């Protein structure tokens, strides 16, 4: 089975491991993630105020090239997924904007592509039971805390991605891989987004709220689908350990990395060594790598 | 019952506002006689002064007139207007009430209500019915569709009574109904039960100087604003400032003027002001589209059916600006009315140079209620509201058998609650009368009939 795939800028640079793990895991499951022939940055934040149309030009160009390659577009990063899905809805539902943007980028696109996240592909195309059967390693001793952040779930009317106050897709994914779910209350709180650029204290406190809560729920590691959340959660843990005595740093993996480990793939290309909080000790201790 | 005479299946209802009228109709339509006593020359009470009613914006006259006309025409309802109950003896089943009628100076048996005397009378005085927003003649009826539509002479205003001159009304009256020598009259009425429904009036804001009521002409109270909004009011529904008759472009509405103020005025909440103020602001915007309406409030109390949606509509469709905070001072500066308020969220003091201010004063029981309470031996709380037998499960009974209460006389309430309490009081009376008159047996229904 072949699905057009949109990696996104960061998955080509900082989060190369996320991308490679995704491609190889899906290949192992018989799904070819075919990278779009030409794609550009998705814009990273959906333009909140309705008037500026330029921000939609970027994401729609990707949708146009996806339309040429199939009726679905799989996305790995939850932020790209949010922006592409909402831009797609604009092209599908808001006629005046559709005309302006089509004129602007000289295309004729009406939102016919279905934008899906890799987790949805696992759930709908592969199915959790088939996935469970494909798992090679025993993750039963591993407690994983799912982290959704904002982009998957909100705004609920447009994203329509799981129950926005009590999501379960990451939980089901973790259980399908055979691991335990560490339930903690801050799965959907904000990681700080770009505030680190000018207010480090705030960002650190925001990530600390999430990390400390995951630890309290005795999680061995956190799994997420967004490179920016991964960065904000992973980057400041040394400083937080100093600032908050007793806080034990906790590794933050991408969902595709955990998937690749569970499928028993060779982990070297997945940049596990490049995480600030090294995940390898706990994975080794659980006999997974 | 005192003597062995059969109890009287006739009820005395004191107060002919919507509560008294509703109770009277329920009882009269069930075949029993009603004596309906009202202080004013005609019936309708406060509701008659209203422009439109929340939450449906029905025009008050349109929904009240059928009731007043039905009560006025009902063969089993004896209307005694311009009258007061001055004494009561006996007890349940056998009350004797003394009703004193003030001199109307017009022979109502002859008068046809043609209105010529009102047209010709030269003397104009400020109209209490219009809350000082308009004038009325010395000889007057409360409104064009008054029931009964017969005038009375205000002896403090009529130049014949004050300075011995004029008598014009006597000259123009085609049926010679004017009778300056008419004296007060008293009648005795035998009844089996009593319903007290004397309603409310508004707290005098003169002693709340900070709102400028009484000093600043363009500061009026809620009922006065109702008269300005009313199609049959002094300004035919157009919003006009009392000082210069201009149309105000900025109007500030102030809630809880005298309510919820344990130290300075009444500690209790008057319940309906949040709703009628939202209505005032909406109706103002319907008439002055480019006007701005501010409402200073502490809590918005819109708890009844469709009330919250009404408050929602005021903000959404009519762009009424709600500012949460108390007003500290209202004073006049040039031809503007300056309001010093505050806003809780921003914690800032807020100043608005408005053209007009409308206050929502506390509701207090009618001054006569305390006299009635002593007369009937019913307890009243320290603010003069009559106390029902039990707050929760006996809301319309009183400690005195055969005497019931309904409407704002027990506490401030809106029209639906008043109407429900009026019918509830009627149900209690009907139950008494049915037992006394044995009506069900007469209709072939044996008591204790197997109800299966």
């Amino acid at each position, binding site marked *: 089975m072949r699905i057009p795939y949109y990696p996104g800028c960061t998955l080509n640079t900082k989060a190369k491991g996320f991308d490679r793990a995704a491609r190889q895991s899906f290949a192992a499951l018989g799904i070819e993630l075919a990278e779009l022939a030409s794609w550009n940055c998705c814009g990273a934040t959906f333009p*909140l105020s309705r008037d500026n149309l330029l921000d939609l030009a970027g994401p729609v160009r990707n949708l146009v090239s996806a339309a040429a390659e199939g009726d679905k577009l799989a996305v790995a990063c939850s932020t790209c997924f949010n922006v592409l899905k909402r831009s797609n809805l604009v092209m599908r539902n808001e006629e005046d904007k559709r005309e302006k943007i089509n004129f602007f980028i000289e295309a004729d696109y009406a939102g016919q592509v279905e934008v899906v996240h890799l987790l949805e592909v696992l759930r709908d195309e592969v199915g959790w039971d088939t996935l469970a059967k494909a798992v090679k390693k025993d993750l039963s001793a591993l407690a994983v805390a799912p982290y959704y952040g904002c982009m998957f779930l909100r705004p609920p009317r447009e994203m329509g991605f799981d129950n926005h106050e009590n999501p379960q897709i990451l939980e089901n994914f973790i259980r399908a891989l055979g691991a335990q779910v560490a339930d903690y209350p801050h799965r959907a709180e904000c990681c700080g987004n770009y505030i680190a650029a000018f207010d480090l204290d705030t960002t650190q406190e925001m990530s600390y709220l999430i990390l400390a809560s995951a630890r309290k729920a005795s999680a061995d590691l956190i799994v997420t689908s967004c490179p920016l959340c991964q960065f904000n959660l992973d980057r400041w843990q040394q400083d937080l350990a100093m600032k908050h005595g007793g806080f034990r740093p906790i590794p933050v993996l991408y969902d595709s990395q955990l998937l690749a480990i569970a499928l028993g793939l060779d982990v070297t290309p997945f940049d596990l060594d490049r995480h600030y909080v090294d995940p390898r000790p706990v994975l080794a201790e659980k006999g997974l790598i | 019952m005192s003597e062995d005479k059969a109890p009287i299946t006739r009820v005395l209802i004191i107060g002919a506002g919507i509560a008294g009228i509703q109770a009277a109709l329920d009882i009269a339509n069930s075949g029993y006689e009603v004596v309906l006593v009202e202080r004013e020359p005609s019936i309708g009470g406060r509701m008659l002064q209203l422009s439109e009613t929340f939450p449906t914006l029905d025009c008050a006259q349109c929904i009240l007139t059928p009731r007043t006309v039905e009560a006025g025409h009902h063969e089993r309802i004896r209307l005694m207007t311009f009258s007061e109950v001055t004494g009561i003896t006996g007890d349940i089943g056998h009350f004797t009430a003394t009703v004193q009628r003030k001199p109307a100076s017009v022979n109502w048996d002859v008068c046809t209500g043609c209105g010529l005397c009102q047209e010709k009378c030269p003397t104009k005085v400020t109209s209490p019915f219009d809350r000082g927003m308009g004038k009325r003649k010395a000889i007057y009826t409360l409104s064009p569709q008054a029931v009964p539509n017969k005038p009375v002479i205000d002896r403090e205003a009529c130049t014949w009574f004050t300075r011995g001159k004029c008598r014009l009304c006597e000259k123009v009256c085609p049926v010679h109904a004017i009778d300056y020598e008419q004296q007060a009259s008293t009648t005795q009425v035998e009844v089996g039960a009593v319903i007290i429904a004397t309603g409310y009036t508004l707290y005098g804001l003169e002693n709340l100087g900070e709102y400028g009521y009484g000093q600043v002409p363009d500061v009026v109270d809620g009922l006065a604003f109702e008269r300005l909004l009313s199609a049959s009011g002094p300004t035919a529904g157009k919003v006009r400032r009392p000082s210069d008759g201009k149309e105000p472009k900025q109007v500030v509405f102030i809630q809880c003027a005298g309510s919820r103020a344990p130290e300075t005025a009444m500690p209790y909440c008057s319940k309906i002001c949040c709703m009628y103020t939202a209505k005032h602001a909406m109706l103002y915007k319907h008439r002055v589209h480019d006007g701005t309406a501010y409402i200073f409030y502490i809590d918005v109390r819109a708890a009844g059916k469709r009330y919250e949606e009404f408050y929602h509509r005021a903000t959404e469709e009519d762009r009424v600006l709600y500012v949460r905070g108390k007003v500290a001072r209202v004073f006049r500066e040039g031809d503007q009315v300056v309001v010093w308020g505050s806003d809780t969220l921003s914690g800032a003091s807020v100043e608005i140079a408005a053209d007009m201010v409308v206050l929502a004063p506390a509701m207090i029981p009618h001054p006569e209620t305390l006299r009635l309470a002593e007369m009937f031996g019913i307890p009243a709380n320290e603010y003069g509201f009559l106390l029902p037998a039990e707050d929760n499960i006996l809301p319309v009974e009183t400690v005195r058998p055969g005497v019931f209460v309904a409407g704002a006389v027990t506490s401030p309430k809106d029209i639906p609650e008043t109407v429900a309490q009026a019918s509830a009081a009627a149900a209690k009376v009907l139950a008494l009368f049915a037992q006394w008159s044995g009506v069900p047996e007469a209709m072939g229904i044996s008591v204790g009939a197997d109800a299966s």
Partner: protein
Amino acid sequence: MATQATVSVAHTATSSATPAARGTLRVDPTFLRTVETLSHENIRLCYYCLKCTAGCPTAYAMDYGPAHILKLVQLGQKDEVLRSKAIWLCVGCETCWTRCPNGISAGHVMDALKQMALREGYAPAERRVLVLHRQFLTSIRLFGRVHELSMLALYKLLSGDLFTDLDLGARMFLRGKIPILPERIRGRAKIQQLFKRQARGQG
């Protein structure tokens, strides 16, 4: 917790437009209408229950919480709002819109206010955010994709905080997270054309 600017009961910052002895606000109801049109949000529906402020991830770091900003807009305090730090701290996570009982998105209002602030020349309280966003777009304009090294370097230069996090850049570079050479994509010419057309169009 990050230091919070507490709002004293007697409001301190007076709006320059209407200085009054007692820090009093003058209400200008027209500002509400302008912001409603720009943001397509019914701000007038708000009854200030503050559910948005309660759930906003960055509210405690803001000088005015989201509901507070809506109230200042309602009361017409334009300078106050366009100078505030809050509008730049909003990350667009849409939690406020998700939970608002009246369906108002404070995020959309903040976005509209950001645009208004830029268009009317108000210096953003958080200048560096603007610089970051601009660099982001420049990187796309040049390469069609985000190239972190050039973006961060330019951001450092323009935002003036050269030295904090310098080690951040270096270590990321060493770990190969940031490729030295930017990836050039074929559609670059198309993208630059879009920017030019936009520059002419909306300015």
